[in-house]
């Protein structure tokens, strides 16, 4: 982080941040004490409306990645970043709603490791639980690092002190019960973030002379390719435009994004909190509509930064490979937002990173205490014992996240890092998941063997890119690694299944598509809903809109 990045916050700004956290903590405390039947009702989620879960669904993901990572990407690669939303998110969200959700909701599987244990037994369960726990710690590190950069920019403390201070704040947030009202917080956070980023974008555009002014100035300083989303050769690192498009559609659009959106249970659980199959299916589909338009207030500010913020202009002009693009949006906030709006922006950013990290830590906590410790280390202890283990796991994970935050701080563009992680963990998981769901012959041995070999393949590709054997600068290395992980996982799973014994068909009910009765997968009330509440027509509209967006901004 640059030394000169200091946000000049005033009393008003701090008061607005404090107001946000006061509201969040009050809801948390109220939830813990269960002061109201209706609050209790909302949290246990027996009838959350689909618009609430839909917003929570995308808000659970609107953290560090979206705001800092995507604006950094926008500054570095320009409009090609739109692919992360229009190719890399919306189709997978629609697929989740239309194809996968009936199965999830009907089979009542509550976590990925749980599915793995029931479908493939302990081997795949152990592999998956360990890799999930590691991934959560690594991603928590990204959130912590970003949180610390804000503390650093506000108070001017060195990074390591900021990291420890931010970690302490997150720990107390978790302890004080900020997590008990997670869905509330996510919806609230969504509106605060929009309230900060929309003025940022509009004022930024005003400063550069409107959309026309932005187009002229970006063309002049960085060239026209910054403004077109296809074929994105800069982003993917492929010189050949055809391969670049294939890499984006297959690597990002299929393996990475389907892997992320369909197996990430932090997201999927939001949809499980609805009262009917149709509402569960609508959750990711309703989420897809705001998701399409979020890049306009995230990627465009990154683009504006390249013509408005002196540091970014200079880095672009001198092609500085070491420039930390992650600071683009903070620099733009510093230059554009007056005191007052600055406080709203700080509240939104702090909330997003803190909630993101808290979600990672609590997901780790659950998997560590119940899927790993209880299953493999100390069985059959009283509940209180595992709660104590969970508390220590929370502290341990927070300390470990300080370490992984230092890894994250070494990347000048966090999206490169994050896509690499997703290639390691999500791509093989998606392959095993989808094969295990639709192919009843797949055996328990194939379950863990596929996961291990898929992750290994991604690591081999990563090492080859790092050591220069494969020359893929942008995010193409991550796309290729994910593609390799997916293909290797499928091939190994099929080969191993041919030579090992499958589970008896009777044990696969509710776990494999062909063995799950139709009435478990469908909503008996579906035909009574109006079109705007039916998942499939809504998904059709969303798909048409995203195609139109791709055509307009090609």
């Amino acid at each position, binding site marked *: 982080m640059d030394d000169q990045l200091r946000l000049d916050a005033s009393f*008003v700004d701090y*008061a*607005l941040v404090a*107001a*946000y956290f006061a*509201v969040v903590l009050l*809801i948390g405390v*109220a939830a813990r004490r269960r002061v*109201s*039947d*209706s*609050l*209790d*009702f*909302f949290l*246990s989620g027996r*009838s959350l*409306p689909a618009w*609430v879960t839909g917003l929570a669904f995308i808000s659970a993901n609107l953290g560090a990645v979206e705001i800092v990572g995507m604006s950094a990407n926008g500054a570095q690669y320009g409009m090609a970043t739109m692919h992360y939303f229009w190719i890399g998110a919306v189709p997978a969200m629609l697929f989740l709603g239309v194809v996968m959700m009936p199965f999830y909701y009907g089979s009542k599987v509550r976590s990925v490791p749980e599915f793995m244990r029931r479908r493939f037994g302990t081997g795949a369960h152990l592999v998956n639980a360990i890799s999930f726990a590691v991934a959560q710690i690594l991603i928590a590190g990204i959130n912590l690092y970003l949180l610390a950069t804000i503390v650093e920019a506000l108070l001017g403390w060195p990074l390591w002190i900021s990291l420890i201070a931010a970690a302490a704040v997150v720990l107390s947030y978790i302890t004080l019960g900020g997590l008990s009202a997670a869905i*509330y917080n996510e*919806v*609230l956070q969504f*509106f*605060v973030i929009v*309230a900060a980023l929309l*003025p940022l974008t509009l*004022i930024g555009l*005003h*400063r550069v002379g409107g959309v026309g002014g932005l187009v002229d100035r970006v063309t002049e300083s960085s060239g026209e390719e910054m403004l077109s989303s296809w074929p994105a050769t800069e982003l993917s690192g492929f010189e050949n435009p055809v391969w670049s498009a294939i890499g984006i559609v297959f690597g990002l659009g299929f393996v990475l994004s389907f892997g992320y959106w369909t197996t990430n249970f932090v997201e999927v659980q939001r949809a499980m909190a609805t009262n009917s199959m149709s509402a569960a299916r609508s959750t990711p589909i309703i989420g897809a509509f705001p998701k399409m338009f979020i890049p306009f207030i995230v990627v465009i500010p990154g683009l504006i930064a390249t013509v408005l913020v002196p540091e970014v202009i200079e880095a672009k002009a001198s092609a500085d490979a070491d420039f930390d693009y992650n600071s683009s949006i903070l620099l733009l906030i510093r*230059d*554009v*937002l*007056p*005191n*007052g*709006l600055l406080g*709203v922006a700080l509240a939104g950013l702090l909330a997003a990173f803190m909630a993101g990290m808290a979600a990672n830590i609590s997901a780790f906590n659950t998997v560590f205490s119940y899927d790993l410790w209880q299953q493999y280390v100390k069985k059959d202890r009283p509940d209180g014992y595992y709660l104590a283990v969970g508390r220590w796991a929370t502290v341990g994970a927070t300390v470990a996240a300080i370490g992984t935050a230092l890894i994250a701080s070494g990347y000048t563009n966090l999206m490169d890092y994050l896509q690499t992680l997703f290639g390691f963990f999500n791509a093989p998981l998606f392959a095993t998941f989808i094969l295990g769901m639709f192919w009843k012959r797949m055996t328990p041995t194939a379950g863990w063997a596929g996961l291990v070999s898929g992750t290994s393949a991604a690591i081999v590709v990563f090492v080859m890119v790092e050591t220069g054997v494969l020359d893929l600068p942008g995010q193409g290395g991550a796309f290729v690694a994910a593609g390799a992980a997916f293909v290797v996982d499928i091939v190994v799973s099929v080969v191993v299944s041919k030579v090992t014994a499958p589970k008896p068909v009777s044990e696969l009910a509710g776990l494999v598509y062909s063995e799950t009765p139709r009435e478990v997968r469908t909503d008996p009330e579906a035909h009574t809903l109006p079109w705007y509440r039916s998942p499939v027509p809504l998904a059709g509209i969303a798909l048409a809109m995203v195609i139109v967006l791709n055509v307009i901004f090609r």
Partner: protein
Amino acid sequence: MSKREKAGAFDVRNVIAELIGLYGVVLVVVGLLDDSAEAMAKTGGVNANLWAGIGMLVVAVAFALWSWLRPTVVQAPKADAGD
């Protein structure tokens, strides 16, 4: 035995209305008091706090109206129900 009641203060729409409304009021006040040259230079001559504040007030009122006109009626869980 279960009773039906409105979600009231804990309806998420009311929470949104309260927080965004509070932000709107603060920003409008800041916008009216502080039109310093420094703030104007940042925004390129627009009173951003004032306009953003007005926008947030409109959103807050819309959410408050929505939850007032269409209150969420919940089937309150039984007193001894736990989960």
